[in-house]
């Protein structure tokens, strides 16, 4: 195995973050009160990784014995992960101080999880996917329980860990069967042998188990049980990370496996399975979210529904669907980051204050925050001039093109249902009133993070064409 300069340059986003993790470890052990430095250090590091992945968009390279790919679509995922995590690090700085979990390890875990995500999205081999997934998940388990004096946080960590390792079991079992059928874990080999493999029961069962394992990670019904409790119990900034980049990483695994098969124009055998998952997730998420009184829990159910919308793009089984999913992932990431960022600001010192009733009259007391929150809710429900609308638009369009109009119709119905609970928050903020004083100290860093996310939501809503063209150009 030899490295050329080109390989090293192409790999530089991954290498930079790897070196960065070591640097954060060294800073953490040498500097007293390192947590003050590490927040900004992490932010700058992730930002430069995001920048590197964008400028290296056309540096395609196959490295690590053909097990890792960089450039093109992979770099778009790199950008999404690192930029999303950079925003999370902005949101975290004040929040973890408020929550009493102001430790430098928080940032080390954050960076390591981003490295795991990058390994997933660049993999050309199932083993690489598995390694990346484990690295990401283990960091998430720890982060979910980071508030170790809070019972809910511990509950979240334990639940996430148990169900997550259960899902990993499915995944590994699936990998075993795939290896048995193919004799290799390389995705290229699978695409080459797809004609013969598509009738092999071993391969189909293995892939099905693989999809089930990842359904846990993307929170699709019926593998969603952990989501509400974990999203609610974990520190809000961690929830922001898990629900956005974490989900995007799990989707990236499905995309990198399926898109070569889609590109080779092989017929799909997984469309029925994926469609069922999509329909169940959309309807279940939207309907159950109506009855939630906790904002974090509501967003958890909404994230289940969003997983359903994105699965439509995969079920459509065409290239448009795949780029639609990527667009949706980017849009969803920044919408959820903004929403969770605002929640983390309004949350009280004892980690309460995430109920709908706590938002009564916010529109008069904190007009700026309430305005941003309203905008985010509009975007999440898919109301036109914002990113959420175009995400759904591209995904539904691909389904119609694939002749699956019924799937798009179910999607639209579920979107209509979801408008109810998103707008309910706006009603509570602007039309209810209470005498309670909402104490909010909007820190500069968190506001910066929220502003970046909101700006991106608007840009993606105003100029979706250029972004979808960028995604399409990387095919």
């Amino acid at each position, binding site marked *: 195995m030899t490295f050329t300069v080109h390989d090293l340059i192409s790999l530089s986003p991954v290498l930079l973050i790897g070196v960065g993790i070591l640097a954060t470890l060294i800073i953490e052990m*040498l500097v007293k009160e390192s947590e003050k430095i590490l927040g900004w250090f992490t932010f700058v590091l992730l930002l430069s990784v995001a920048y590197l992945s964008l400028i290296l968009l056309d540096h395609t390279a196959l490295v690590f014995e053909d097990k890792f790919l960089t450039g093109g679509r992979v770099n778009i995922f790199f950008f999404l992960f690192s930029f999303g995590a950079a925003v999370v690090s902005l949101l975290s700085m004040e929040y973890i101080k408020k929550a009493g979990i102001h430790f430098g390890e928080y940032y080390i875990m954050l960076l390591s999880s981003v490295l795991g995500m990058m390994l997933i999205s660049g993999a050309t081999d199932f083993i690489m996917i598995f390694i990346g997934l484990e690295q990401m998940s283990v960091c998430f388990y720890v982060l979910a329980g980071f508030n170790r004096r809070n019972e809910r946080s511990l509950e979240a960590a334990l639940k996430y860990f148990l169900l997550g390792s259960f899902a990993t079991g499915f995944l590994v079992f699936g990998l075993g069967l795939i290896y048995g059928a193919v004799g290799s874990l390389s995705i290229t080999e699978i695409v080459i042998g797809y004609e013969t493999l598509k009738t092999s029961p071993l391969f189909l069962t293995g892939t099905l188990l693989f999809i089930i394992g990842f359904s846990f990670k993307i929170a699709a019904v019926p593998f969603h049980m952990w989501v509400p409790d974990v999203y609610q119990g974990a520190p809000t900034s961690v929830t922001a990370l898990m629900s956005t980049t974490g989900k995007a990483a799990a989707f990236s695994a499905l995309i990198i496996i399926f898109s070569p098969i889609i590109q080779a124009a092989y017929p799909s055998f997984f469309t029925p399975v994926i469609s069922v998952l999509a329909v169940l997730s959309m309807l279940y998420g939207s309907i159950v979210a109506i009855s939630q009184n906790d904002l974090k829990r509501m967003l958890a159910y909404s994230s289940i529904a969003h997983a359903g919308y994105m699965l439509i793009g995969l079920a459509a089984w065409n290239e448009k669907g795949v780029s639609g999913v990527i667009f949706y992932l980017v849009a969803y990431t920044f919408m959820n980051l903004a929403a969770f960022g605002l929640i983390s600001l309004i949350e009280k010192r004892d980690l309460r204050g995430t109920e709908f009733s706590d938002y009564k009259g916010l529109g008069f007391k904190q007009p700026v925050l309430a305005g941003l929150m309203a905008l985010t809710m509009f975007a999440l429900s898919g109301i036109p001039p914002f990113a959420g609308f175009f995400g759904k638009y591209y995904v539904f369009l691909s389904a119609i093109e694939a002749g699956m109009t019924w799937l798009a119709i179910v999607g639209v119905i579920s979107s209509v249902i979801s408008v109810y609970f998103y707008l309910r928050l706006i009603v509570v903020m602007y039309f209810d009133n209470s005498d309670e004083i909402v104490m909010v100290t909007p820190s500069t860093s968190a506001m910066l993070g929220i502003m970046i996310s909101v700006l991106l939501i608007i840009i993606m809503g105003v100029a979706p064409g250029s972004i979808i063209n960028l995604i399409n150009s990387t095919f």
Partner: protein
Amino acid sequence: MLVEYIPLFLVIAFAIVFAFGTVFSSKIFGPQRPNPEKLSTYESGVQPVGTTHERMSVKYYLVAMLFIIFDLEVIFVYPWAVQFKKLYLDPSVGTTAFYAMLIFLVVFEIGYLYVYKKGGFKWD
């Protein structure tokens, strides 16, 4: 190849028989006259207090976890060590064989130093 291992299996079988024989021989030769006093737990002559199945300090588990991590590191070193001379003399690899392992060890040892600095090796 497999013929090499036949002696090992014989050794293992012999050891199992030997271990059984030794432990159970006292059942044959020794007397069996138990009484409650004899069978109570030894605690320097006083009445035994409490049970032993209580929670241990978490430090012991920490040692176990650190052992797993560093023992895996050792296992990664072995194949390299056996092949090192060959790799070094191979002109297409050369000193890369050394630096690759050095990088691996440095990454690991940063973790070691981190544990050290954070008090993972404080046993009081």
